[in-house]
């Protein structure tokens, strides 16, 4: 599992004479420039895929704060994603006068409240048992959403249709382009919140509770408070992502929040790196891109005209679920730090090279 990074001396040069801080700022500037030009250099389909990656990164950030930094395993974050999505859909279609952008924070607040409440019974469940209970939640979620009693609000099995918002102030952007900027802005907010939360006193307490709850309690950390707080924050971020996803798909329905959604989130944080903030972006990219690649792969396999048995095995191996499953197991076995682990390792190598003066070859 990941541990807290040791603080770097701010002034020590990392690479090419520039400090870690400068490199970080450069990367940020690059990221913002890329985000500004991206909507005009991609096709609408590609752009909407990138938007989906951004949305999933927010959800994965939420899950990773809970599972990676606080050690509470959740296999049921699809439920909070659903709460966010349904909040936005219901507010936009059943309540008049609420603009779409205001539904996102409302969805976040409601999800945070539910997450905080779920966090209380979760206090009594450790490790495996919490995984079990949240797995049960994930399996039951579609059925709860379909229930007759709130049919009028949720639309039952049919779900709710809504419209993708258009750009405000007469900006010359199409809906996909505007949604990209909208989601990107929310992602910036989410990551700033997450980063600020984790780098200070709260983050240290969360990690302490994960690594050794008894020692943390002895040092005066209120473990119950931090665990429920983490659950609330985590649910809030995932709920915000769910709300954005509802705008993205223009539709919510019970069956899109099945157990495999929650499982995809787990895959995202394991591949991205448990306890790694930049890793979640890679994890999100992975869970968005694999299904696309899988169908390409299986189409390609079918064009090869291999002998029947071999072709059948290859088609089977290229089904997205099988690919996901294999990636998960291989990642746990060979790359426990996920993508975030690779980043950390690279940084360490660069730092070590910067610290040791170059020696002449002997």
């Amino acid at each position, binding site marked *: 599992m990941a541990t807290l990074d040791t603080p770097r001396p701010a002034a020590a040069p990392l690479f090419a004479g520039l400090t870690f801080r400068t490199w970080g700022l450069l990367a940020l500037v690059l990221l913002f420039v890329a985000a500004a030009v991206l909507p005009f250099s991609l096709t609408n389909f590609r752009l909407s895929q990138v938007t989906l990656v951004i949305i999933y990164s927010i959800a994965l950030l939420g899950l990773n704060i809970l*599972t990676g930094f606080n050690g509470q395993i959740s296999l049921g974050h699809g439920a909070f994603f659903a709460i966010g999505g349904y909040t936005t859909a219901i507010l936009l279609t059943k309540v008049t006068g609420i603009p779409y952008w205001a539904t996102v924070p409302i969805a976040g607040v409601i999800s945070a409240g539910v997450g905080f409440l779920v966090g209380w019974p979760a206090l009594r469940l450790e490790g*495996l048992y919490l995984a*079990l*209970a949240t797995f049960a939640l994930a399996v*039951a979620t579609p059925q709860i959403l379909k229930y007759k009693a709130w049919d009028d609000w949720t639309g039952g099995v049919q779900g709710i249709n809504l419209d993708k918002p258009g750009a405000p102030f007469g900006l010359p952007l199409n809906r996909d382009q505007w949604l990209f900027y909208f989601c990107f802005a929310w992602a910036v907010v989410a990551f700033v919140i997450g980063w600020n939360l984790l780098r200070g006193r709260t983050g240290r307490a969360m990690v302490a509770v994960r690594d050794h709850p008894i020692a943390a309690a002895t040092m005066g950390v209120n473990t119950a408070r931090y665990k429920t707080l983490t659950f609330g924050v985590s649910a809030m971020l995932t709920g915000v992502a769910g709300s954005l996803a509802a705008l993205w798909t223009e539709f919510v329905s019970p069956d899109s929040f099945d157990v495999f959604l929650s499982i995809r989130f787990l895959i995202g944080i394991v591949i991205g790196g448990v306890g790694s903030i930049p890793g979640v972006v890679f994890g999100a990219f992975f869970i968005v891109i694999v299904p696309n690649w899988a169908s390409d792969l299986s189409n390609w396999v079918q064009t090869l005209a291999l002998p029947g048995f071999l072709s059948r095995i290859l088609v*089977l191996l290229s089904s997205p*679920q099988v690919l996901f499953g294999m990636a*998960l197991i291989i990642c*746990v076995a060979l790359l426990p730090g996920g993508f975030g682990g690779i980043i950390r390792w690279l940084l360490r190598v660069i730092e070590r090279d910067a610290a040791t003066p170059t020696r002449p070859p002997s």
Partner: protein
Amino acid sequence: MPACFAMPGTELLHQVLSGIANGGIYASVALALVMIYQATHHVNFAQGEMAMFSTYIALLLINLGLPYWVAFFLTLVFAFVFGLGIERLVVRWFNASPVLSVVAVFIGLLLIINGAAGAEFDYTIKPFPSPFPSNAWYGSPFMSSHEVGMISVTLIVLAAVFVFFRFTPLGLAMRAAAQNPASSRLVGVRVGWMLALGWGLAGLIGAVAGMMAAHVVYLEPNMMSGILLYGFAAALIGGIDNPWGAALGGPIVGVLENLAGACIGTELKLSVALVTIIGVLTVRPSGLFGRTLVTRV
């Protein structure tokens, strides 16, 4: 809501009996889960998918023209080898890993088996035959023959498991390996293979549950997700480290499910399992018969 208070006695009896019959399936799944939990303290999230895949093999064999019971026992052989193979090839490498890694591996297995079944056998719902006659049991208004058959099969499985662990040297060695691996190794028990045998047996018991369940819920790649949830609930009610608890937890959960279905409607059946799981875990984590775990700090 009034349906459950004003339920006539015969209707109540019917609900209870059919709950006990479904409980047989849940008890088998719970038993399979307990078997793996006892040995390694892992909860096998892929248990349901293993059973589902074995049931597809059974259908394949039946469609080849084999009689039901021949297909049944051949499927049990397959399920045993399947479970054993999964332990030897994948799970054994993660026995000492942190909880999250183990959960991730099991979820990975779940995805692989589910996806493979979907790709190979497609996602359409298929009927699955029952070996028992289709008429009501001796004209009884309360139970169908399949329900009586399910209960009998469960009891036979339980008895077989009991006899195996109580009266055979291999069963003794397996119990020893689960209870105290280090000492067992010293007296020559091959602990790794005992764990693998446990997985094989769990796969086999799960396959029985799958073949019994498939007649009721129909065969499709996701057919076990709800049943697995009830299996979890049954195992937890009984105490997840106690096989007798699992056997009793099954019928309890089955009856609970049916009564709740009559009261609040069948659409929320899975939530009954969810509430049971969370309720047991928060109020009495060791279940009715489980041992309370004491950890040394």
